[in-house]
């Protein structure tokens, strides 16, 4: 699946959808496909977060990856559905498989879809 044009990306294979001052974060289709069957998702408590800090973990049957905060701000919502059904990360990475929502003051420099696809060689 091509990386959607309307999203921003990080080199850690996370996507960011900006809606007003709220950024929704998930992992990309490329990342979920490489990880394989996701079996466990650990998400943070609500509250302040600094960009690049570890806020959770995505675990598949064969690997485990840390989730980094792509932005600085306040975590205002986490996706409990994905904690209950981790396979959502595989089946709908850009939709129901979202992970956290962060209220941000300003966005850091992020990759656009073209730059991200270049990074993953797709």
């Amino acid at each position: 699946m091509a990386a959607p044009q309307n999203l921003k990306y990080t080199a850690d294979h996370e996507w960011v959808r900006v809606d007003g001052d709220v950024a929704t974060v998930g992992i990309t289709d490329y990342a979920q496909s490489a990880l394989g069957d996701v079996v466990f998702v650990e998400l943070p408590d609500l509250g302040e977060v600094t960009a690049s800090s570890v806020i959770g973990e995505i675990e598949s049957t064969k690997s485990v990856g840390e989730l980094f905060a792509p932005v600085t701000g306040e975590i205002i919502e986490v996706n409990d559905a994905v904690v209950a059904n981790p396979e959502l990360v595989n089946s709908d990475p850009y939709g129901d498989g979202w992970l956290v929502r962060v209220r941000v003051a300003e966005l850091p420099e992020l990759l656009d879809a073209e730059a991200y696809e270049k990074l993953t060689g797709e």
Partner: protein
Amino acid sequence: MTIADAVRTALPSARELFADRHIGADGDEQRTMLEAVGYPSLEALVRAAVPESIQLDERAAAPGSIPQAATEREVLAELRRIASANTVNRSFLGLGYYGTVTPAVIQRNVLENPSWYTAYTPYQPEISQGRLEALINFQQLVCDLTGLDIANASMLDEGTAVVEGMLLARRASKSKSNRFVVDADAFPQTLALLEGRAAALGIDLDVLPLAETDPAALGDCFGVFVQYPGASGRLWDPASVVAAAHEQGALAVVAADLLALALVKAPGEYGADIAVGTSQRFGVPMGFGGPHAGYMAVRTGLERQLPGRLVGVSQDAAGKPAYRLTLQTREQHIRREKATSNICTAQVLLAVMASMYAVYHGPRGIRAIAQKVHLTAALAAERLRGAGLEVVHEHFFDTLAVRVPGRADELVAAAHEAGVLIRRSDADTVGLSFDEVSASDAEAVGAALAVFGVSDAAVPLTAAAPGEGDDAIPQPLVRESDYLTHPVFNSYHSETAMMRYLKLLADRDYALDRGMIPLGSCTMKLNAATEMAAVTWPEFAELHPFAPASDVAGYLALIGQLETWLAELTGYDTVSLQPNAGSQGELAGLLAIRGYHRSRGDDRRTVCLIPQSAHGTNAASAVLAGLRVVVVATDENGNVDLADLRAKVEQHRDELAALMITYPSTHGVYEHDVVAITDAVHEAGGQVYVDGANLNALLGYAEFGRFGGDVSHLNLHKTFCIPHGGGGPGVGPVAAKAHLAPFLPGHPMAQSNEHVGLAHGGAPVSAAPFGSPSILPISWAYVRLMGADGLARATGSAVLAANYVAERLRGHYPVLYAGENGLVAHECILDLRPLTGETGVTVDDVAKRLIDYGFHAPTMSFPVAGTLMVEPTESEDLGELDRFCDAMIAIEREARRVFDGEWPADDNPLRGAPHTAESVIAGEWTHPYSRESAVYPAGQAQVRAKYWPPVRRIDQAWGDRNLFCACPPPEAFA
């Protein structure tokens, strides 16, 4: 020269060389294989493969300490002589090691049965259902007795399990404190282990007499540790301490005696978060310290923090329940320096034995044994009090502390004189622990009591009415809950039923008694029957690890010889056999390096360089030694990138503690530049740790200590023939240069601290001074049977077998890495990625299809994802090697048929593998390939020797998403 020696020399051809039995391919077969790889002799092949810069010049010329090869009969006779130098006195020493009766049906059908002891770790669950069931029984047993929700299978011993409990508490606790509170009434060996391991990680250990401490005065901490019952035998209720710990966000770790738990309240019932201990007294002989299975159980919510292996239930492709190892991402092979622990090899064979002891005795039998032990202790207490002695604690399970002001040493000596061993707690107190064996040995109990002047000591102790002595377990601590209620613990109580249950499980598994297990980096070579013989002899099996030195003279002699031989074979000055697994050997070696730097005031040296290709355990061990991991890049040939290494050495020059390097590399290649690598590290003041996992490709041709190694661990369960046991036991000796000796693991209770002439002064890494001595006769016998020449021949034969397989398969699967002259070492990596790219057939498909062909898969996706690593070992003959290569070639042809569109990508014999009998006879056959090709892909030749997998391919994700780690109800299998 004796006449026997003269005859031997005169008639060399009449002597049977064991090496000819150990090495699978005979002279003719090896000539065929050598021709295929293009070398005139084994010697020429190895000399071409091993870089000249590290080769020993004149192997044969140097007269070493290793004696000429002996025959199997001679070795058994020598072992008998060594065994007879040990004295088995009845032990009342306790401290976590107890006499136990191994049911003969378990000894014969598990411990002495190659179907159990030669199996590998159950990473291929479809062909491991038997031991996975045995292990889930173990987990159920531990959960039931501890009253906790989830248990692993298993830990290395009780002492290290307590350490892991401390580390788990630190990970999981919300407390910011760095302090861990330890009950003063803990086993002394556990205290010594905790001190060493806490110091390495900067944890503040605080030892308090918890039974007398006001819980409100516990102080800030992240965890509390309680021994239950205490080392002194005292039984007290830790509930208030546990509650006080919880109040401040700390976790409670309890080391609980499994047999005591049959009668006393379970840790889970008074709120413990973590229970640890040993299952030794469930039918596993003391063995002078090991091996035994430790255990760990936790409450729900901590399962992802558990170290070690965990068996869970998932389902197979037909939707039937099937066992597998679950939550593997916790482990070091995936999480590396962030793993929950460095342990990998555990104690599977011993966990199986312990679980079967519970299966055989059932809840009533276990309770009866516990009652008998307790009653004997209670009656002994009565007699002692009757004779005017003070029994210190009113409440106990099996251990009495007796006050004998100023007379402890005298009484211990008198007891030894009388053939019984009692414990000196301090100058004024002795300890007496009763167990399943002594409780049935009225004579020994009488002898022990007579030492205290109890006059009517010989009166049979078991004559008392049942129920008597119960005052010693106070009412709030009496166990009221049930345990072992699952049908598996209530169905196999006759010997016939037990024998058949063990056979049923063994038949589900694929071990070395069925065929080759070509697992790269794991060295599944022959575990010869003669090597195994002495393990169960009482003179080796029934000794307590803290028995006096004079009782264990035979053991000390055997250990001394083995240490000397291993030092010589690796080019080091000293050896410690204490570590219970390779991972613990790594830790011991790294702790020695850390200790060495600190002793020179080099506190800053904490950086450990580890190549990208290293086994994950390296990184996990480094972290536990208090080191910081810096990864060194690997070049396109799979070797350490010398430029990157030099850059990292330069960058961390002042903080460089060590480099860990595996040789030959984890890629199965003799790296050419190894001397340049070790030189660069030494030049910057660092130490070189050579991981000896692949020593079997070097033995007799090169020595770690001579090409720059300062310290190494070896895996006796790889190179030196200790069987894998389905995932342990292992022994991971650490060998080092003399300058590191003062920092190698010592032990407060060691009977001897002379290791090839040097003393070891570091903290212990195992509960027992010599780790797992009862399996050391295996490695001793291997060296004795092979001699130096035989060991070198084994090396050459292993290298030949790997190169032969590489040569035969090269045209079908690219061989990923090679060293000098295009040769691999003792294993080769087959690259499946091109095949996967073209056909969609994955590593998993090939591995599972190999089961249909009658093979255990090679190592999957290590060290490179999308590959198979094959290590045939020296023990396989040409017929078996060819059968394997033929299967691999046939599988490639099958993959081509998928590529050609003959079979759909989602319905072909590869994707459908493995095929059970049921899958080909039940219902209508709708697949585009035949039933015959599903289950007999190698044709008629396979019919007689067919191995039938018991389940179809197991759904890994389903098991991880639906965590269930206890015995499923029998209906689940209906």
